[in-house]
């Protein structure tokens, strides 16, 4: 893309800023999760470390860093150490294609949607390798469940996205947002696809009500039962970053990305700043929904999960595509 040194420098600055942003957001999200969950359960939550407990995430990370790393006997040492990285890295690098503001992303990819989908799917390797390498039945079951779940819901998710692409007529994330800025948010055109995508995103991130991979009451900790210290921390952080990526994708595809609904963005840097702000607000709202749902709904049973994925969402998504296709072709023919 940019071959001149200045362009490369600007790219580097953008990369650092955006990654710095999500790496700060992830621990804050953990904090927010604990406080919101506490509020839902009529508790207070962590409020001692720093003002209003805001330094709690820092304390947690320091604790994790200083914890002893234990590798179980007869575990596959290479895979065991590799797995947290494999869970963490895809989540982080898939964020590069997300337009966080007007013309502002780390890498402006023509096939943004495909890229994000492809890379986030790699996260499942981390989970299944972790489960396999731990040499523990709980980890193994957790890993197996989660790979099956992620693969199933990926289909529904992909199909839901297809109908979005049909409407906006583009696969470049920036252009999809621009289309929405002109014609209105896609959620109003595709409510069904939105719901399917939302639920599939919960499932992809192994969040409640679909946290089959962890499932504390059945599988101890699921795939990360045997992990300690910063390796566990990587899984944990990766999970939250994956959540941020999925929410960003949701905001970009359905909620108008950086588009501030009520007014047009001014030209220049001020407009970019406002667009970033809009994106952040929407992102935080979706993340709040994630947390809110987690502390409201009980966990699905495994067979219910699969049934919902294959028997409800895949056919619905297909139906949605057919309907969208008919409507789009009728409109383009007449108009």
């Amino acid at each position, binding site marked *: 893309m940019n071959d001149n040194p200045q362009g490369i420098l600007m790219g580097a600055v953008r990369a650092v800023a955006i990654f710095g942003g999500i790496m700060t957001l992830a621990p804050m999200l953990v904090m927010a999760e604990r406080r*919101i969950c506490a*509020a839902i*359960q*009529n*508790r*207070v939550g962590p409020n001692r470390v720093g003002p209003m407990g805001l330094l709690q995430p820092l304390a947690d990370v320091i604790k994790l860093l200083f914890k002893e790393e234990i590798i179980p006997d007869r575990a596959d040492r290479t895979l065991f150490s590799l797995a947290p990285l494999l869970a963490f890295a895809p989540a982080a690098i898939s964020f590069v294609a997300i337009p966080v503001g007007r013309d502002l992303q780390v890498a402006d990819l023509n096939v943004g949607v495909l890229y994000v989908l492809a890379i986030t799917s790699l996260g499942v390797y981390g989970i299944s390798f972790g489960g396999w390498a731990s040499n523990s039945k709980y980890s193994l079951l957790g890993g197996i469940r989660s790979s099956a779940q992620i693969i199933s819901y990926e289909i529904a998710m992909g199909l839901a996205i297809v109908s979005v692409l049909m409407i906006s007529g583009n696969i470049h994330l920036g252009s999809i947002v621009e289309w929405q800025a002109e014609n209105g948010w896609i959620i109003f055109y595709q409510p069904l696809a939105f719901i399917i995508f939302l639920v599939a995103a919960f499932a992809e991130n192994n969040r409640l009500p679909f946290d089959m991979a962890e499932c504390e009451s059945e599988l101890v900790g699921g795939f990360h039962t045997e992990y300690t210290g910063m390796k566990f921390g990587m899984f944990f952080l990766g999970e939250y970053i994956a959540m941020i990526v999925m929410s960003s994708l949701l905001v970009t595809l359905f909620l108008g990305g950086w588009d501030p609904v009520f007014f047009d963005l001014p030209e220049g840097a001020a407009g970019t700043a406002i667009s970033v702000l809009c994106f952040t607000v929407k992102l935080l709202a979706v993340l709040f929904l994630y947390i*809110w*749902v987690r*502390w*409201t709904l009980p966990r699905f049973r495994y067979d219910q999960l699969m049934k919902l994925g294959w028997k409800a969402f895949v056919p619905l998504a297909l139906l949605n595509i057919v309907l969208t296709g008919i409507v789009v072709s009728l409109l383009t023919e007449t108009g």
Partner: protein
Amino acid sequence: MTEENKNKPERPRRSWSFLLYLPAVAKGLFNTLLHILKLKGHKTFTVQYPEKRQEVRPGFRGEHRLKVDELGREKCVACLMCQTVCPSNCIDIVAEEAPWEDRDKRPKIFEIDMLRCIYCGMCEEACPCDAIELTEKLYTVSTSRAEMIYDKEKLLSN
């Protein structure tokens, strides 16, 4: 060939809207939102411990106290009833002759091992002289095991 299982429980009929799940989900979300916003009389139950302390209900059974009478003498007559009844065997009494006219004995040593006590209150009920009672003190703390054996002075001053 296949016989109908007569004991098979009937499946509950579920309406179409129930099977959509979404209405129920929305209801649940609304409910938890009320909890977050603390509407509808929800309140936070947490007590911020070192700054605030939980109120003790009347009748709470905490540390023991040996009572004294109007003349400032301990009421206990060392009858050993409490020691006998104590289910965890944590009261240790050594009697001596009382210097007063109205009773024969008084305790020379009266020790309760607070680490063994289960705060059942049997001692209080067994005492014929109403000499021992459980107070509402609940912070039984010390830095060593030896300190947890309360002697007569400690119990009298409790």
